[in-house]
């Protein structure tokens, strides 16, 4: 179910969205939800349509280790890996919730971006 963004276009444009799977996004947003037991990193475009996501659980951590900052670091790195080739020039990072993964994810993103 695609994100419902109201459009006033003609009906011909309805189906084009699904074809642009490898769309180039110069500007994006990285949402980091850093709760106490997990950290979820989602990469979207500026309007909020998700490009890719990754979480600590999908990176193979389980149980108490999901809340650690190192795990958040790996999750962030994983999430960005898919988007790095798409030529993103500007990224906005939005961090939600109190958790140990806040700083760690930020640091990981910074590392990937600048090195």
């Amino acid at each position, binding site marked *: 179910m695609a994100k419902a963004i109201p459009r006033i276009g003609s009906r011909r444009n309805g189906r084009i969205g699904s074809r642009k799977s490898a769309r180039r996004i110069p500007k994006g947003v990285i949402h980091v939800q850093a709760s106490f037991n997990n950290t979820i990193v989602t990469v979207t475009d*500026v309007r909020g349509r998700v490009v890719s996501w990754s979480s600590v659980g999908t990176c193979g951590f389980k149980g108490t280790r999901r809340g650690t900052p190192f795990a958040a670091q790996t999750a962030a790195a994983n999430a960005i890996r898919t988007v790095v080739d798409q030529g993103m020039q*500007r*990224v906005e990072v*939005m961090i939600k919730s109190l958790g140990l993964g806040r700083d760690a994810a930020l640091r990981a993103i910074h590392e990937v971006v600048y090195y």
Partner: protein
Amino acid sequence: MAASSIPSLFSFFTPSKPPSAPTKAQPCHLTISSSATTTKNGWTPLVSSSNEIQPNTLSLSSSCSSDVMSVVCPSFVHANTLFFRSAYNVQVIVDENEPEEKLLGRFRREVMRAGVIQECKRRRFFENKQDEKKRKTREAAKRNRRRRPQARNFTQDRQETTKNKKEEEEDNWDLPEGNIPY
């Protein structure tokens, strides 16, 4: 340059137009927004954009007001729109080649100033009316304690001097004239 940036800034606030990417090719640019949400309630939007930076989106409490990073630069014209529209409280704009530790320190400091962490802790568990009252009085005391001492000194001195003069005139050390009843 500044003049050209202003109309483009206004154009971002019209919801119908999607924000256009900056025409200059810039190296990767990071802006970071932080929100405070409790794990229980999910996301409660806090303050909306009041000042230039930071709408407090994340927190709902009025005590968390967002401070805006006063970075105004034509290249960052496009950077704030997301922040303004969303419910995030703190915004930190990253300069080029900023060392990691410095960035993190700045981020943490801004978050602390916005009171996001306090607010989160408070919202984790239920707080009955008693505790809420206690907390509010404590916060009010803290807020007033910082501002009052300076203002008080000035006004008090003036009051004291005028009072002293008045008292000297009205002092009743002498016995009243006339016959005393006893």
